[in-house]
């Protein structure tokens, strides 16, 4: 398998914002004292009059973005996932989602790979919070290039969108033709396979691809799906994959209780039930450590996906 190049999703976000700023005068960007970390600062350098730093006041930032949108702007609000979801849930619900306003919430530093900052900064339940909100679209890009495509698509779409990004430099795995035309609500098949389906989201997509290589050694032919939109979920692609392969493993850097895997499970249970296993954080908070150490300790490695796949195969009597 070829060695993947590492790139940062936040840089891609910053790049996309500048491009959008050049194309459209109705784009405004809001930060909350983290403009350097989340790369909205790059937009601010190019368009200082259209960037607003609200300080450490996320509630005000979100509702002000609702006001921008009500006055005809497309507003991007960005800070760490931990501060832009739970802390402002009511503002997102009341000011943004309910009136279906054109606010894009771009959360960076999501998941446990934040690392050393520890559990207080490791957001592992944001997908749950965002996906239960009516009118909300939820996107988790798999790498930096897909981040840029997702941000551009979100800007094009009218209505609230939540985009989840990580902190670290991560492998570029979407530089294949199947992933070039990003469409909200459309999953992409990264690899064909007949025996089992691995569904990944965010940084776990690359890990699913690696797991598929590993499974090949055991004569298991795995299909890999990049579930980059969590809501609306691409049910058609999922159900088709379940029919074709008869087993499924999901992988996400999120609490397994309520994230992408549970959404997949609901879809399958109601449509085409196959043996399934969810890889993710088993309902616990994280802790300080390096990204790799945390991924190992909290069950998010390639080996965990491979083991889950073997387990599913065993349940099917193979």
């Amino acid at each position, binding site marked *: 398998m070829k060695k993947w190049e590492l790139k940062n999703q936040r840089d891609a976000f910053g790049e996309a914002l500048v491009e959008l700023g050049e194309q459209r005068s109705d784009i405004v960007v809001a930060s909350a004292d983290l403009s350097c970390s989340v790369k909205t600062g790059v937009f601010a350098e190019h368009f200082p009059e259209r960037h607003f730093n609200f300080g450490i006041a996320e509630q005000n930032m979100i*509702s002000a973005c609702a*006001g921008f949108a009500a006055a005809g702007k497309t507003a991007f609000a960005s800070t760490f996932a931990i501060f832009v979801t739970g802390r402002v849930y009511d503002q997102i619900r009341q*000011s943004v989602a309910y*009136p279906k306003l054109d606010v894009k919430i771009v959360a960076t530093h999501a998941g446990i790979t934040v690392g050393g900052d520890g559990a207080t900064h490791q957001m592992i339940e944001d997908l749950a919070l965002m996906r239960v909100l009516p009118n909300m679209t939820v996107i988790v890009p798999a790498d930096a290039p897909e981040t840029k495509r997702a941000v551009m698509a979100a800007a094009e779409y009218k209505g609230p969108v939540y985009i989840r990004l990580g902190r670290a430099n991560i492998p570029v795995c979407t530089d294949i033709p199947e992933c070039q035309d990003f469409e909200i609500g459309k999953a992409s098949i990264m690899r064909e396979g007949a025996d089992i389906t691995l569904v990944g989201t965010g940084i776990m997509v690359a890990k699913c691809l690696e797991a598929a290589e590993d499974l090949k050694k055991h004569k298991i032919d795995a299909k890999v799906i990049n579930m980059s939109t969590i809501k609306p979920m691409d049910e058609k692609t999922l159900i088709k994959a379940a029919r074709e392969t008869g087993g499924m493993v999901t992988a996400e850097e999120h609490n397994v209780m309520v994230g992408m895997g549970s959404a997949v499970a609901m879809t399958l249970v109601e449509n085409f039930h196959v043996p399934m296993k969810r890889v993710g954080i088993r309902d616990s908070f994280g802790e300080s450590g390096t990204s790799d150490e945390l991924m190992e300790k909290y069950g998010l490695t390639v080996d965990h996906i491979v083991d889950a796949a073997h387990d599913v195969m065993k349940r099917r009597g193979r």
Partner: protein
Amino acid sequence: MLEEMASKVRRHIIEMIYGAGSGHPGGSLSATDVLVALYFMEMNHRSEDPKWEDRDRFVLSKGHAAPTLYACLAESGYFPVDELKTIRKIGSRLQGHPDMRKTPGVEASTGSEGQGLSMGIGMALAAKLDRKKYRTYVMLGDGENNCGQIWEAAMSASQFKIDNLVAIIDRNKLQLDGPTEKIMSLEPLGDKWKAFGWNVIEIEGHNFREILAAFKKAKETKGHPSVIIANTIKGKGVSFMEGAVGFHGKSPSKDEYEKAMKELGGD
């Protein structure tokens, strides 16, 4: 003329809340005169073109005074006055709290206290970016000043020098559980806003001359946002509702309804 309209609006409020069997008469009646002054004198708006892009914006941050807003909008011609009686009923365009997607003329969906001033900030900044002359008015409840987000918003409006924004505090001195000074003391309220960099104008909130003069003063203030502290009486206009905590969120009985309508000059 404004006084007459205010009485009419107050009668609508009582009829709506009595008809719905629930609602917030106290804070709706205290806010009436300011809203009447805005909709029938101060603001540039067009009921025949609710989305006219140069219109002044009004955000009712204290969303529980929705009946006052609906009465002003109906009397302005945004929708038939007859529709007022559908408030809080299933399928109605008139939700218990304002909904910008359902009701023509409603600029913001509010009801969860503390968020409207921030929304107003977004609108006012958008006006500046677009080099538009429209102004944004936000009405806050006094109890709403308990919310931390109000002070986040207050800080930022001053930081961004948003002088096309006017906050009006309906200072009726009562919140749901009792007197504001007993529940969570606000005073010295004017000094607090001043300390946050706002131009503070304090008035008697049932006096149209003072209300309109305050709007004028706010318009003349450059470089700072303005806040009008409108000293009002909760339940204003209905003797047994005035200053009565019990009518924060309770609809009148049949007898109370008839008595209130009589006091407000109804049949």
